[in-house]
């Protein structure tokens, strides 16, 4: 991985300018969704697939008016699915809904309390979807062995959690993420757990190829400002990663020359 000379993020053969991917859930209204999405600078926006509320005003504005597929790459997810079968079905519907679009986010959850991924079902769904021609970005545990398995199945990006979905607890196990990043030949994105800008920067400094978040922006007091903060944090973290940081050491070393001192 780490096509460090390139500035863009390449997923399934397509290059995107932004390394920040954002969700479209939990906003106050569609206008806030639109403005925050814009401020984030993201190119890829996740959406959920849900049954139409029959009888609801059919002319009410829809999400795809706020984040039009002509401008953004829409990434349908399988949020709320607890088994491989439901996840595959959801993405088959999404592909039809988005006119044959194959880039998807797979997440198969384990339970409602942790929203931790159910990895056996995730692997099963990934296999079916890849065989069916989908480009699968997959939410997974921060377990390097499982991440490798998903890559071998043919997933186009692995997306380990940094901490629980919506928890805002930040990067809890940077060492596991580093193991995954070091071995991966596909992009690695932190998906879930980011709480504030420094979390996103840390993920990028570790060498992640991107960060996907929703609650950290939509749940902030000023989501539009936080969207901008996240954009800057992802850029700053990426630049710092590419710059090659100084090694940590216990001894001090002065920044000013010793020669020519007055004292």
């Amino acid at each position: 991985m780490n096509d460090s000379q390139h500035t863009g993020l390449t997923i399934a053969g397509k290059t995107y300018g932004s390394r920040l991917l954002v969700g479209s859930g939990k906003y106050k209204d569609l206008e806030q969704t639109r403005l925050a999405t814009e401020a984030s600078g993201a190119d890829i926006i996740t959406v959920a697939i849900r049954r139409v509320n029959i009888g609801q005003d059919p002319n009410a504005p829809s999400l795809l008016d706020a984040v039009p597929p002509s401008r953004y790459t829409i990434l349908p997810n399988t949020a709320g699915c607890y088994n491989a079968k439901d996840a595959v079905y959801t993405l088959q519907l999404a592909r039809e809904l988005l006119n044959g679009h194959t880039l998807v986010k797979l997440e198969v959850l384990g339970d409602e309390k942790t929203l931790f991924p159910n990895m056996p079902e995730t692997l099963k769904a990934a296999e079916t979807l890849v065989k069916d021609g989908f480009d699968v970005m997959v939410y997974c545990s921060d377990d390097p062995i499982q991440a490798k398995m998903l890559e071998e199945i043919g997933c186009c990006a692995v997306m380990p959690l940094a901490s629980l979905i919506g928890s805002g607890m930040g990067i809890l196990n940077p060492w596991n993420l580093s193991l995954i990043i070091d071995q991966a030949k596909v992009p690695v994105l932190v998906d879930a757990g980011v709480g504030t800008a420094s979390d996103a920067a840390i993920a990028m400094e570790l060498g992640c190829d991107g960060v996907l978040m929703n609650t950290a922006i939509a749940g902030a007091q000023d989501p539009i400002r936080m969207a901008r903060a996240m954009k800057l944090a992802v850029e700053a973290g990426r630049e710092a990663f590419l710059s090659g940081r100084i090694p940590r050491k216990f001894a001090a070393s002065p920044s000013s020359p010793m020669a020519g001192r007055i004292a």
Partner: protein
Amino acid sequence: MLKAALSSIANSDIRIMIVIELNGESRSVEKDHSVHDLINALSLTNQALAIAVNREVVPRAQWAAYRFSDGDKVDVVRAIGGG
């Protein structure tokens, strides 16, 4: 009188209704109605939707030709905000 009534029945459109399950709720539709007719009836024409019958996606190109059967389980979905 009776003759007129019979003739009226014969000529009128006697609608044979079937019951499908639409997004988890029962709904009567005319037997010969297509997916396309249902979408029109729901005022959802030209919306970004996908439809599956008995968990098999029905591509938009087949909406006009696809006829429901009694007991079909139909999902009509759209994209909403999500992470």
